[in-house]
């Protein structure tokens, strides 16, 4: 079954806290599960859209936001399992190459929400290699604090479509729940951009 997870040592809350510390006008989309709790733990924000279902959709939602808001930096923060369910979207996004979109995978190699079963990433599929093969112009594998700092800087700088595979520890942290009213979060997000609810 390939190699098992190794080199996954970063603290997920520290990573997300660092990435969003200087978020300015950054728009953030989260996949369902732990990554949305990480973003919520870093501070709720009108520029956040949290998914609670539609597993596999986070990257495509981020792509849609990025195409509609080309002057804003759009960051998708999701887990390896959530990304795996929408693997084809990496091909779709790589064809579009929105320069203001960054996809950040909180990769612990496990399905954290369902009992820490190993994911394909945990069994050895290298997500960064997949993004590279699809044609993402900038791909990073992040395994230490220096890498997190580099990634944080590149999220702000933007300039080209990027994919970051961030190797985090497999651990279940206390949940910090984002709002679950989808209509509220949707309209709040639009309002923060100066758009009417409808």
């Amino acid at each position, binding site marked *: 079954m390939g190699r098992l997870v190794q080199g996954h040592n970063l603290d997920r809350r520290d990573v997300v806290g660092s990435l969003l510390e200087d978020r300015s006008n950054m728009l953030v989309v989260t996949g369902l599960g732990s990554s949305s709790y990480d973003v919520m733990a870093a501070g709720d924000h009108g520029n956040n859209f949290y998914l609670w279902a*539609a597993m596999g*959709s986070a990257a495509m939602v981020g792509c849609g936001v990025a195409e509609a808001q080309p002057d804003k930096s759009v960051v998708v923060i999701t887990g390896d399992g959530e990304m795996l369910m929408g693997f084809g979207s990496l091909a779709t996004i790589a064809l579009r190459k929105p320069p203001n979109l960054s996809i950040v995978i909180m990769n612990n190699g496990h399905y954290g929400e369902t009992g820490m079963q190993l994911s394909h990433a945990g069994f050895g599929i290298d997500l960064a290699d997949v993004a590279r093969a699809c044609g993402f112009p900038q791909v990073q594998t992040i395994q230490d604090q220096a890498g997190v700092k580099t990634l944080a800087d590149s999220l702000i700088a933007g300039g080209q479509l990027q994919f970051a595979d961030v190797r985090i520890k497999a651990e279940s942290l206390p949940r910090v729940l984002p709002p679950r009213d989808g209509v509220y979060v*949707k309209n709040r997000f639009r309002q923060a951009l100066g758009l009417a609810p409808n």
Partner: protein
Amino acid sequence: MTMQTDWQNEVYPALKSTGIKHLAYVPDAGHTAAIQQAHADEDIQPIVLTTEEEGIGYLAGAWLGGNRGALLMQSSGVGNCINTLALQSCARFPLLMVITMRGDWAEFNQWQNPMGQATEDALKLMGVMTWRADRPEDIGKLIRGAGTMAFDGDCACAVILGQQLIGEKKWVD
């Protein structure tokens, strides 16, 4: 073999009139004209998908960012969308879909029939409103009306293009 395709030219102008800026699709023969017209239109971003549910996420994102869009697929793709339609349902994102039918009428390949026969019911089960066009003259008004209810009412709306429009497909000469 000649195939009547004039009806295909009804689709794109009607979609465009609803104010869309994005057209996401998984190709189908019946959508050939709309896809070509979208690619030839500088005001529209055409997005080819690997699977239909990608379009639901994409259009939700586009709406979050202030844009309208629509999604083209074949009836078989509706099955791929079922779980993802929760996104539309829970956040009441507008969703405008145009679906060409297989397994509907004069279908040579019976493997298309299970999903084709379940397409409209499956959409309704997930809260999508549906309208069906079997005559070319109905296509434009149904798409425009569905667009009104999608974008002005935050609803999920699908216009289904019946196989009688598409015609009998001759598989073996």
